[in-house]
């Protein structure tokens, strides 16, 4: 329980502190531009390992470029619909449907 309480304190500080510390302050324009790149960067940094890596037998991450990488294949229709149809739900549904279909067939 102590571990959980400490984890909560640490996590809540990280999630919340910038809201109060940065919100109303005038920011350096470079810092502001830098923060403007954060959403795209953090999304890609989370996404790439999710669809391009798998764990080898020894637990180390290895590149997973193969027809068997269902997530990678499903990303293609998902991205296509997100880019051209600009549909948030459409993109996600297409990806899920592709994964379900491929699991059914393979």
């Amino acid at each position: 329980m102590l571990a959980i309480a400490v984890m909560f304190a640490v996590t809540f500080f990280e999630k919340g502190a910038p809201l109060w510390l940065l919100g109303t302050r005038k920011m350096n324009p470079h810092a502001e531009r830098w923060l403007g790149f954060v959403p795209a960067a953090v999304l890609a940094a989370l996404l790439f390992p999710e669809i391009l890596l798998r764990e080898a037998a020894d637990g180390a991450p290895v590149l997973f470029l193969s027809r068997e990488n269902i997530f990678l294949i499903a990303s293609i229709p998902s991205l296509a619909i997100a880019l051209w149809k600009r549909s948030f739900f459409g993109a996600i549904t297409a990806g899920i449907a592709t994964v379900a279909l491929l699991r059914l067939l393979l």
Partner: protein
Amino acid sequence: MKSIETRAGINSFRNFSGGVRLASPLLLGYAPAGFAFGVLAGEAGMTAAETAFMSFFVYAGSAQFIAIAQIAAGAPVAIIAATCGIVNLRYMLMSASIAKRFSLLPFLHKFLFAFHLTDETFALHSARTEGKTPEENASPAMRCETLGIGVPAHLTWLITSMLGFLFGVLLGDVTRYGIDFALAGVFIALLAPRLRDKRQAAVALLAGMFSLTFSFLGFDSWSVVVATAAAASIGLLLP
């Protein structure tokens, strides 16, 4: 007077449900992940109360999975806290990048926003507040929508964690219908509009490549934060 109040109530409800609608793919993705967490927490010897407290208060998927492994292995609290801090450092970047847009939220709403913040809700909030002023983002309509995203996502995580803890063994693998792709799908759907801007696209590509590289180099939990910071910094140098 009464009818105005009723109408305001109806509008708040409508805005709140608008948020729930936006959050629905997240809920689909959180359910199997929360369930899996509950199962593993049970196997690691955590009690029902500990599992619920962790999902409700810590509310950070990857950090929770790492922590139950550490707790099961009898790691000291200082190590657990430090690891959690590193894994969740990315939230600080996210929170900082969105702080200005939510600067006019009242204290309670800022508190709840921080409490409900995850990778996926951040991605949603960052997209829906884009181009709006802090005043607009603090409007009653936007506040209700913000809660409409945060509350059901948080509850889904808590409830499915408990379901996994209680019934995990009975249900087996819940990911077979493809819903485990939902969170990757959310990332793709919210990243795509940013790719129209060449600089943003370049930064995203760099961050993705860095993230892979740092994973190979054994950066583990650091890789997302380091990759994000490095790519955003290079973004400043782009013409």
